[in-house]
């Protein structure tokens, strides 16, 4: 039909631009993942230029698949993302419900609660790892040594001394170590992103129908039942939104990992790919394709799960 041609023609430039925007990087990544392409190789200098003649088939994929560090990064990515999602959603719902009631100073409390979201991720990581979690100079170190001093001082006190002499000397935890650095990352990102969840849940709570709650009160529903059967289903959709947006963001965490431990022990997928990019572009591209597949699986899986459990 003639009257549809013109609008479509007018839309075409934008659509084509968007297509190229998406397709060129994806196409290049796919292409690189099937060829040998490195930045520096003295024995095979022809590998340093991308060319179809260096075709490697699924070789890059096999290489990545066979690396222990790839699986470690995969596992770490999943652990970090799911822990952050779990904690931010629970904290977000609890805090949003609490501050939805009116109390003096509510406005200030709300602003304070939202403020972590405005801190830059790198600054956030530096603050946490150096000033809060540092085992010597951070709040953690100060608190631990303070408690140790206190119990040591009270050991010889009469009457209560025996109680304090039972206390072991506490050891501060180093959050830059292999075993703990992903915990540090989870903590700082949860601190930063809980406000986002609160913000979304709070707006949603304000649109909750009060008459429904009154009806539930008359129907004999306890506060918990009201929360479980009315508020939580009402929050189903915002929770799905928070989970989806955060999953997208946190699968690509980088700054926090870099600052906390330079990838020591808690490499996630982006960090692993970043290390490969230093030389082996082909393998990095293959890992990138794996990351795309993972992101899609995670997104579909999470949405299904959230949708089913909350909509009753």
């Amino acid at each position, binding site marked *: 039909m003639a009257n549809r041609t013109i609008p479509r023609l007018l839309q075409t430039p934008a659509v084509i631009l968007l297509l190229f925007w998406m397709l060129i990087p994806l196409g290049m990544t796919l292409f690189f993942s099937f060829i040998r392409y490195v930045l520096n190789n003295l024995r095979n200098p022809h590998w340093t230029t991308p060319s179809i003649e260096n075709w490697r088939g699924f070789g890059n994929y096999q290489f990545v698949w066979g690396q222990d560090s790839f699986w470690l990064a995969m596992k770490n990515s999943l652990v970090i993302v799911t822990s952050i999602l779990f904690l931010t959603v629970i904290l977000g719902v609890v805090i949003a419900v609490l501050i939805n009631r009116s109390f003096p100073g509510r406005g200030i409390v709300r602003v304070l609660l939202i403020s972590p979201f405005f801190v830059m991720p790198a600054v956030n990581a530096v603050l946490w790892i150096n000033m809060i979690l540092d085992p010597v100079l951070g709040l953690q170190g100060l608190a631990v040594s303070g408690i140790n001093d206190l119990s040591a001082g009270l050991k010889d006190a009469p009457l209560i001394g025996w109680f304090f002499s039972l206390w072991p000397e506490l050891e501060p935890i180093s959050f830059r170590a292999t075993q703990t650095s992903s915990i540090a990352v989870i903590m700082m990102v949860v601190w930063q992103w809980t406000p986002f969840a609160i913000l979304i849940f709070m707006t949603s709570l304000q649109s909750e129908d009060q008459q429904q709650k009154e*009806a*539930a*009160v008359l129907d*004999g*529903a306890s506060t918990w039942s009201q929360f479980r059967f009315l508020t939580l289903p009402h929050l189903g959709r915002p929770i799905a939104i928070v989970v989806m947006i955060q999953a997208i963001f946190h699968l690509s965490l980088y700054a926090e990992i870099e600052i906390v431990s330079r990838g020591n022990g808690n490499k996630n997928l982006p960090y692993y790919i970043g290390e490969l990019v230093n030389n082996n572009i082909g393998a990095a591209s293959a890992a990138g394709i794996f990351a795309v597949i993972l992101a899609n699986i995670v997104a579909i899986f999470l949405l299904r799960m959230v949708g089913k459990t909350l909509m009753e």
Partner: protein
Amino acid sequence: MGRIQLKGVQKKFGDVEVIPPLDLTIEDGEFAVFVGPSGCGKSTLLRLIAGLEETTSGTVEINGEDVTMASPSSRGLAMVFQSYALYPHMTVRKNIAFPLRMEKMDPAEIEKRVAVAAKSLNLTDYLDRKPGQLSGGQRQRVAIGRAIVREPSAFLFDEPLSNLDAALRVGMRLEISELHKRLQNTMIYVTHDQVEAMTMADKIVVLQAGVIEQVGSPLELYNAPRNKFVGGFIGSPKMNQIEGEAATKRGCTTLGMRPEHINMSPDSGEFKGTIGVAEQLGSDTFFHVHIEGQEETVTVRQEGQVNYKYGDTIYLTPVEDRVHKFGPDGLRIA
């Protein structure tokens, strides 16, 4: 059983007294209607009975038991809200079953009761739908169903029909009256529509600014309104209230004449006036007549189709034994 008694019940929001202390008794099995203009405190009064608002002073008794401090759910009342307040995420079945589920009733018994309630309200085919997929009237019935299954001692209705269109409203009005006849339960019904009050009530409670103006059966209120406000509020079209010579002649300050109790004649009568707007309903005709010396028009009801035209001169005479006389304080003179 559901005898509800309010003793000196008062409600203040901050310094504003919404309901000055009032006493009221609603007998077991009675259909009581609270009626009044918007903001008169009728909904607040209902919410006080339901326990959704706390009384500032006074006591609420149900079946002789003081429930002033009791929780809403323990009062054994069921309420139907203006917005229906259905739970949007649950099916009709789960909505109706919700209060029973909260009582931790046996699932088989719940199933049975829901089925009975759904059948009596013609909802059986809709049990697995969600409220969003139902029409206004069906939602209303689900809300009533949710109230019925609890077998409460009294039902409270808070303007339940005001979200429905006119035709549905008449139908639901009949269904609720029918329900009352069948269940023989105490019902309290809040509305601003005097037609609903007149057609459904055993007892009407007319409220204005939190004060009970009059309590009585619909016809008592129609035949002997206690004051000017009740006279003007009950009956449709509104009672004509005129002051001046015609009133003083009969020994009162305000003379109340219902539109249906005025005779109209083309050549002689007490008041001379000109016809303004005529509303032809087919069965009746309402004339708005301008009378000399009166600011407001006088409404006259004539049976059948009467043909007077705009601007015609007309004479009006009230039916003498149906006029209402009000003194200077607005109260009825016997």
